[in-house]
């Protein structure tokens, strides 16, 4: 991870997305080698190549060099251009894999991003389009990115056939606001979306019933919505899932979801999602584990002031992200216990001095 001139170097295929995003935002070139070089099937996977192609579409002037064996890449970022873009995601990863990095880049584009992505809308690896819409996008609002921010789910597409389609609209901002989010508050409402495509539509209700059997004890304000997609809108494969979120009095969001598995009853999927949600709620903090990196990134890009956020322990991904941020931006976070008088306190206070990142692409317009 030595830095030579303005090239940042890494080895290995892991954490590819965050490194590409940080490179494009910082303008620093990135070179990644030893991509599965020891593997019997070496080099980039189809979804990684597809992601690189998508990043080319979202930017202007980006140069990507891939070695003959596919085990090394060099990315020289251009400007984030935005505008209308359409991209077909391969069926090896869901739309979430591609949309997560785009969400990090879009606010800093030259023109508002209007991206259409086609593929799988919900799978077990990446955030589903439901969570991206109801949980990820509201996190951007903390930083003053809100007007015109939208994710439309046009069609659903379950694995393996896909056939889903979403539209992501993101406004451009000049600068993001400094975050000061240290009060987790108390949970005031629970929301959820159940969907079932190409299976008995009653499956949604059965998941909802199961979730309610646990959640009803806590608060009355629970609304679990059964989202129905029919015919062509329901994609090519059967599948169903339940996505849940809690919202606190200070607008802290925690989420979880579970998706259909062969031979498992919808009730059990509903219970699984609910228990995963409770585990997440129990970890507490102002931001859940799935959104740590997004929030930390926006804190780094914030105006030249100290941003603070209270969260649980960093995930392995977050730890690497913090290190990568330092490689690209030179910014390091101060991470201390949120309550130093309580040795049992698992919450941490993350603070950093924003880089005062200004969207230079926008001023060119």
């Amino acid at each position: 991870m030595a830095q030579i001139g303005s090239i940042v170097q890494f080895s290995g295929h892991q954490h590819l997305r965050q490194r590409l995003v940080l490179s494009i935002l910082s303008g620093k070139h990135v070179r990644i080698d030893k991509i599965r070089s020891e593997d019997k099937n070496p080099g980039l996977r189809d979804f990684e190549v597809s992601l690189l192609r998508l990043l080319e579409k979202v930017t202007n002037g980006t140069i990507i060099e891939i070695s003959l064996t596919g085990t090394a890449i060099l990315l020289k970022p251009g400007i984030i251009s935005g505008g209308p873009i359409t991209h077909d995601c391969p069926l090896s990863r869901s739309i979430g894999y591609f949309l997560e990095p785009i969400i990090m880049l879009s606010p800093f584009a030259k023109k508002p991003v209007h991206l259409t992505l086609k593929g799988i809308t919900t799978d077990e690896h990446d955030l589903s389009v439901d969570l991206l819409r109801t949980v990820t996008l509201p996190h951007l609002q903390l930083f003053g990115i809100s007007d015109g921010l939208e994710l439309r789910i046009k069609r659903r597409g379950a694995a393996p056939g896909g056939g889903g389609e979403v539209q992501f609209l993101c406004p451009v901002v000049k600068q993001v606001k400094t975050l000061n989010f240290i009060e987790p508050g108390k949970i005031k409402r629970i929301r959820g979306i159940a969907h079932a495509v190409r299976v008995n539509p009653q499956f949604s209700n059965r998941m909802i019933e199961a979730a309610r059997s646990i959640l009803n004890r806590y608060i009355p304000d629970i609304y679990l919505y059964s989202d129905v997609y029919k015919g062509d809108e329901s994609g090519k494969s059967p599948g169903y899932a339940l996505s849940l979120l809690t919202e606190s009095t200070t607008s802290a969001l925690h989420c979880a979801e579970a998706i259909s598995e062969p031979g498992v009853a919808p009730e059990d999927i509903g219970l699984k999602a609910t228990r995963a949600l409770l585990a997440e709620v129990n970890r507490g903090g102002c931001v859940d584990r799935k959104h740590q990196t997004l929030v930390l990134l926006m804190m780094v890009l914030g105006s030249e002031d100290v941003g603070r956020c209270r969260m649980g322990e960093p995930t392995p991904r977050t730890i690497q992200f913090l290190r990568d941020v330092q490689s690209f931006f030179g910014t390091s976070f101060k991470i201390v216990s949120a309550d130093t008088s309580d040795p049992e306190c698992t919450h941490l206070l993350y603070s950093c001095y924003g880089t005062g990142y200004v969207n230079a692409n926008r001023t060119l317009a």
Partner: protein
Amino acid sequence: AEAASSRKARQKDWTKLIYSTSLTAEEILHGEKQEQKSDVEMDEDDLFQVKKTTGDDAEALDMSKESVEKEELKKWEDEDMLESIRHLFITGGDGPLGE
């Protein structure tokens, strides 16, 4: 001696662990599984550390959702466990330890 050090459960110095050591994320989170290394002192004098290749699984996916462990979910079948987080909801009154 091992028990004593783990019982202390001292708060981790996250800033130092993340930025000033070459420990992997797993080692930071779950403690180091170091074989026969008298004590874990990361002083400047410790010149080199053998880079471990663990966690470099070729098919480890870059994904944002962590797979939830069965054990973790199993815990929530217990009535006491369900009650233990009631204070996190607006209807739940104050926390048990005045959190």
